[in-house]
């Protein structure tokens, strides 16, 4: 009765997990399932971004670089060498990690807004390069992925539910990693870097190493999302794989939900994707600009009135609700 999230989190997480697991059994409408998959995927990208942007406050606007590298690595391995995307997804993650080292070495020289701009530039350079690689990466036209029918070993499935469970698995992985990092020394170091980099350095935190390590993890996870996405939509081109929208949405869902919190990106994605689905049903998909207009208004509102994100709003409400509940629960025996 009086349980709240702070004292019995595992109970609620179990409820949430059970709901997530049975959802595809209850909902068979492919359109709805597609929205759920998008929610899980973008929440996962948000979680990956949040590790670096939320905890260490390294506000990247170039995570599409790793999304795209993951997508291209697995697709090239699949089409040119016939290697299963299950291996490709890991290879993509490793490529992204390797790429994050030089990119980080350059971008971490800058702070704040200019770090953000430098990351935009790196993602753009990669996109422009892949537009040029006609010989092994299909240039601007991109390519469709071979449809192998129902081939679970090649990450291709007849039923959408399978994609749903993969996306759910990815999100769970991201949340588990965030949870573990949050409770480790690394988590404390990250927050210290995020609060005040100079102060952290002064008390002996190796800020360069911490930033490099979290960038490696964040890049790896983002690349997994890239592979999954192209396997899901069966198509790749530089504009999809290195889309600026991916970089933006990764940051957006985290900020709207709650930057530097475990569940922030999940809350943010659910809110934004729900808004987007509503807008689509009202306006149809023909009106380019409606969705991002609303997103940017939400973002401005959140920044001006609640920069810590909306997750705090919900836990406040929940606390009030739980307290009201417990107060009433105590009153009942007196009245009776």
């Amino acid at each position, binding site marked *: 009765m009086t349980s709240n999230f702070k004292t019995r989190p595992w109970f609620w997480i179990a409820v949430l997990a059970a709901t997530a697991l049975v959802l595809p059994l209850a909902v068979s409408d492919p359109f709805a399932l597609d929205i759920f998959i998008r929610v899980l995927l973008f929440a996962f990208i948000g979680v990956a971004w949040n590790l670096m942007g939320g905890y260490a*406050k390294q*506000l990247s*606007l170039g995570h599409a670089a790793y999304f795209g590298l993951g997508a291209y690595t697995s697709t090239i391995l699949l089409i040119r060498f016939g290697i299963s995307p299950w291996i490709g997804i890991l290879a993509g993650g490793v490529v992204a990690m390797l790429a994050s080292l030089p990119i980080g070495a*350059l*971008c971490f*020289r*800058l*702070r*704040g*807004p*200019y770090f*953000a*701009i*430098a990351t*935009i*530039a*790196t993602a*753009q*350079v990669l996109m*422009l*390069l892949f*537009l*040029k690689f006609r010989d092994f990466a299909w240039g601007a036209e991109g390519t469709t992925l071979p449809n192998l029918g129902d081939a679970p070993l090649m990450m291709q499935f007849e039923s959408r539910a399978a994609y749903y469970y993969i996306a759910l698995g990815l999100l769970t992985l991201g949340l588990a990693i965030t949870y573990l990092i949050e409770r480790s020394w690394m988590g404390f170091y990250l927050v210290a870097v995020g609060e005040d980099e100079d102060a952290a350095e002064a008390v002996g935190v190796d800020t360069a190493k911490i930033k490099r390590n979290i960038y490696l993890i964040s890049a790896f996870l983002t690349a997994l999302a890239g592979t999954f996405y192209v396997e899901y939509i069966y198509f790749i081109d530089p504009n999809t794989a290195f889309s600026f929208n991916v970089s*933006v949405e990764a*940051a957006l869902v985290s*900020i709207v939900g709650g*930057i530097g919190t475990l569940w922030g990106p999940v809350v943010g994605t659910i809110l934004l994707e729900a808004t987007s689905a509503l807008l689509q049903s009202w306006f149809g998909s023909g*009106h*380019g*600009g*409606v969705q*991002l*207009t609303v*997103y*940017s*208004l939400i*973002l*401005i509102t959140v*920044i*001006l009135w609640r*920069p810590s994100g909306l997750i705090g709003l919900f836990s406040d409400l929940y606390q009030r609700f739980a307290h009201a509940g417990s107060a009433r629960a105590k009153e009942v025996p007196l009245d009776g």
Partner: protein
Amino acid sequence: MLATLAQAVVNGLLIGGIYALVSIGVTLIFGVVKIVNFAQGEFVMIGMYISFFLASSFGIDPLLSLLISMPILFFIGVLVQHFLIRRVLGLGDMPQIFLTFALSLLLMNVALLLFTANYRTVQTPYSELTFHIGPVYFAVAKLIAFVIAMLLSGLLYLFLHGTDLGKAMRAAAQNREVAMLMGINPDRVFSVAVGVALALAGAAGSLLMPFYPAYPLVGQVFVLMAFVAVVLGTLGNITGALIASLMMGVAESLGVQFVGADSGLIVVFVMLLLTLALRPNGLFGGWAR
């Protein structure tokens, strides 16, 4: 070969003048208010649409509509400072970056809703006009844009160094606390700085209109250039931003000429990354760091 080279350099310098107006605006806001305005390109876009509609509805020449677009954008700048930027000052990186970033997204997509993605152009008597000195051709519209851009930059310099308000702005840029102790009203100085920066973006828009199409995402081209120029020219340094913008224009033009039509941006970004690797503080010292 030499003629091609000279032609590429001239083309680059001329467009570099427009980049300069945008990047001076970015660096002015950064220097005084300590905010990077991600929406600066969208104000160029607004300037373009103002000139476009004045030209298509009232037949006003885009160069003349400069006198209308600049005051309108100055006023918008004061509003943006008062209602948006002022509220996130001192709140840390996240709100400061994402507020103007969200504003940029908002303006782009509202423009998309209002004006559709169609390209809008204005034909003026001088749009297609060229003349040549030796083998090198000059497009008249671009040359006029360049000259006016340099004039406006010069006026800004005189304003910052010759007027009390300009000096107050530079003082606030160097040390906000001390400037306030000396009796400078930061709200007023910040409003003027953002207003002037946006007016410059509006001017860039009007100057572009005779030879460049207006569309909702047009600002992205210019803001990316401006960011690179501002980093290259040392953050907050106006002369640095001006010189770097001209360099960027030339680099882009050489890239297009000698590497391939779609390589301009690669050259620009590579320049940015090289600068970061070799001289992270930019090429010039700054008065406002």
